[in-house]
């Protein structure tokens, strides 16, 4: 007999779930513990889950998801909870299925350069464990010491070195997933070619709305023979932007080109004293890697491009320790913004690389209009900007102005041909901005993929797609879904 009310179904779920997780852990009824899973790295969205399951195996994930499907209870998969778009915020009356205890490294194959890992393994751990074999895992989000591979798959994470080496989607060969109906499938294969539709590519970056990843086959790379890193200071962001363009125009694809403006430099220096110049209006971190001969040749050209574009100072990393210090500063940039203001919003937008300088001017104009400060850090090589909107959370007016400014910045990115997110994902934060980038037809096409994976809509509902409840849209005219038209689903 079907259980009618949601509260009855949740009660039934709580009663049955514990026996499905013999090795993992279930958190039921412990309000403080449940609350700690109520948000991800974007703490302004919060929802306490009904139950948290810390699964230890694919079988436990499968069993719990099957129970969710049977009872129609929404769930969200969770890695380390470092996401910055609210993607791991539990759905209302929902269940968190955390993979943080699934930390096994199943295999690292030095000949085939493949790692097979469980989803709770931290990104950096893959590289550390591969290092003795001369290998590493290329995508390197700033949170790589703690963020999980499962979370990286869900968000299609990037990082500073993705300009040359690509994003998570370019380094995931296959994923074992538990689909929202409780079935387990492997999408992709041990080679980049797997027959049939490329479901792997659709799953990567789907933000937990298509299922939960339980095992990942990763492509590893050989550690480059040589790496050289420099910091070039400039007296304007325009000059720094010109240097980026000059490097790319020379046919050089550096391992990374990162840009920071004066405010971001100040924050990083206060936080970790990375040795950046406090009198620079902008700084570029440029890294070149490859064979020793390739690095020697390209590094000199990078320096020449910076000099030609008016750099005021070039600091060259003399050794690995100095290189690490330079990167420590950059990777601490988000947290470092806390040195400048009691609160800040990390934004994530993308513009065509050639528009970087102009959008900085526009961001400054918008910030001036509402009297807020914005620090800017960029993955300059691929046009991915991370404005940090600084504000005082004790002021309702400032808080609202900051949120509005952050939204305006990403919508400005779309206006000039870019994207609302380059690596943080849409999640809850930007669901309402999706309409700025995608029209009804685009969203319908995406929904067709979603319903094929999740006909009940129980996998991380409320994320990615704009909804009238979230976004205050007027409900549109009813349009029959493709499944209704085909007679496979009935609206009731």
């Amino acid at each position: 007999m079907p259980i009618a009310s949601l509260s009855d179904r949740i009660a039934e779920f709580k009663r049955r779930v514990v026996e499905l997780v013999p090795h993992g852990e279930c958190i039921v009824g412990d309000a403080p513990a449940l609350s700690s899973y109520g948000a991800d790295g974007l703490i302004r969205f919060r929802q306490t889950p009904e139950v948290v399951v810390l699964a230890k195996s694919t079988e436990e994930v499968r069993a719990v998801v099957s129970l969710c499907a049977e009872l129609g209870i929404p769930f969200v998969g969770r890695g380390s909870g470092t996401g910055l778009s609210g993607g791991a915020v539990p759905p209302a009356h929902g269940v968190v299925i955390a993979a943080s205890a699934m930390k096994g490294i199943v295999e690292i194959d030095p000949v085939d350069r493949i790692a097979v890992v469980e989803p709770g393994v931290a990104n950096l751990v893959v590289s550390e464990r591969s290092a003795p074999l001369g290998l590493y895992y290329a995508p390197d989000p700033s949170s790589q010491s703690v963020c999980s591979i499962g979370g990286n798959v869900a968000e299609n994470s990037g990082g500073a070195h993705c300009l040359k080496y690509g994003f998570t989607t370019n380094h995931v060969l296959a994923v074992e997933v538990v689909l929202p109906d409780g079935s387990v499938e492997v999408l992709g294969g041990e080679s980049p070619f797997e027959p049939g539709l490329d479901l792997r590519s659709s799953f990567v970056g789907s933000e937990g709305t298509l299922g939960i990843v339980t095992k990942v086959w990763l492509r590893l790379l050989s550690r480059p023979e040589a790496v050289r890193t420099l910091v070039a200071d400039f007296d304007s962001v325009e000059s720094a932007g010109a240097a980026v363009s000059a490097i790319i125009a020379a046919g050089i694809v550096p391992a990374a080109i990162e840009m920071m403006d004066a405010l971001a430099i100040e924050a990083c220096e206060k936080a970790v004293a990375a040795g950046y110049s406090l009198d620079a209006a902008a700084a570029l971190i440029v890294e070149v890697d490859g064979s020793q001969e390739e690095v020697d040749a390209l590094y000199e050209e990078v320096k020449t491009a910076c000099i030609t574009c008016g750099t005021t100072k070039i600091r060259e990393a003399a050794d690995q320790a100095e290189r690490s210090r330079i990167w420590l500063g950059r990777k601490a940039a988000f947290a470092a913004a806390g040195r400048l203001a009691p609160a800040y919003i990390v934004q994530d937008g993308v513009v065509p690389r050639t528009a970087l300088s102009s959008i900085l001017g526009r961001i400054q104009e918008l910030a001036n209009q509402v009297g807020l400060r914005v620090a800017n850090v960029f993955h300059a090589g691929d046009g991915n900007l991370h404005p940090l909107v600084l504000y005082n959370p004790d002021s309702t007016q400032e808080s609202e102005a900051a949120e509005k400014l952050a939204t305006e910045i990403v919508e400005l990115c779309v206006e000039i041909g870019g994207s609302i997110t380059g690596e943080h994902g849409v999640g809850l934060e930007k669901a309402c901005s999706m309409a700025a980038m995608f029209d009804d037809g685009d969203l319908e096409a995406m929904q067709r993929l979603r319903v094929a994976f999740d006909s009940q809509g129980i996998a991380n509902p409320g994320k990615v797609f704009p909804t009238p409840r979230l976004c205050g849209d007027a409900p549109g005219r009813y349009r029959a879904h493709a499944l209704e038209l085909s007679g496979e689903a009935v609206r009731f």
Partner: protein
Amino acid sequence: MSGAINADSALLAPASSADASELLASMEPQRRLRIKGHSQDPAEGISTLVCANLRGYEHSPADQTLVAATGERLGAIEQMLAEHGQRIAAFPLTTSQRDMTLGAILGSGLDTAAAQRYGRFRESLIGAEFVLPDGTRAHSGGRVIKNVAGYDLAKIMAGSLGALAFVTAASLRLYPVPRRSVRLSIEADIPHAIALIEQAHRRGIEMATCEWGQGLLELGIEGPSEAIEAAVRKLADLLERKVGELELSEGDQGSPVLGSRLAAERESFGGMIIKVGTRLSGAAELQRAIVGAGLAERGVWMHSHLGVGIHYLGLPGNGALYGRLDAVLRSMSVAGQRVGHLDPAGGSIFVGRRPGGLTTMRRVLESFDPHGRLVSPMRTSVIEETENPR
């Protein structure tokens, strides 16, 4: 609609997304279509929807991106980009590949030697515009190389054999043409080729291409001259030969390059071609199994993008060897797919182990095209495999 298209025609060649949308929306649900790059032989009761009249492109050299209508020919794109010192992540191309439309290349899931350095061609897809079978216009991705907004529907279109939607434009990430390219040819059987590749990786040599066929391994090295010369010296050391004794050629295009020579051979091959994926090391086991099953002596051959474990197996004749190869691949748990000229009524395109996700593939196909308007060997094969597993 432009008025130039008669919706009742057997050959439908819209000149814009809007035309294609209107055309598809105006059709009866039972109307059957197949999507092709350009005109094909007529099929009974099935109209052909071609992208050949979709033309135009926007190239942003400084952003290293290209948005091109799918009716553009690959050769013209390649030539235009070369004038700007850029290229797509597909090379070397054969003469007939250059004559193919971008839409046909995407739909068929082309792989070239470039997969070694840049991944499969679909990995450089950063966006796509398409029309669903009911006429709904949609796009996914965009024009910037970094973008995680919404689902990546562009890559699922690639290699879908026209089973999901009519793709009208694609956005591509571009790459600079390297300053210099050389090709090193080495006589090597597959175990020796794998060992050499592994040693090269350990020595920090990253190959741009890594092709194997006809007993030859061909390694492509790209970059500044100094780096190429150093890499060649290291390879000579590994081979215990002097640099002057190596068989080196400059450039990455043209018939002398093994990759394009093998691809041209595949195009003119009269038998059945199966594409399979393995780990790098799995190539040796695959070849041993083919020999062990007596298939090699019956003329079955193997070409490989070896470094990434993508292989083509050629079966001469009329398919009589198919069953034996299928058994070999199953015994190794290797999945394959027939490529080349495919007939939707010609049986399943899948060979060997069942691909993962077949049930979900079917749901995706039925969600995108609930009436089964698009006739595609992908759809017929997925349905056949889910209803009557081999």
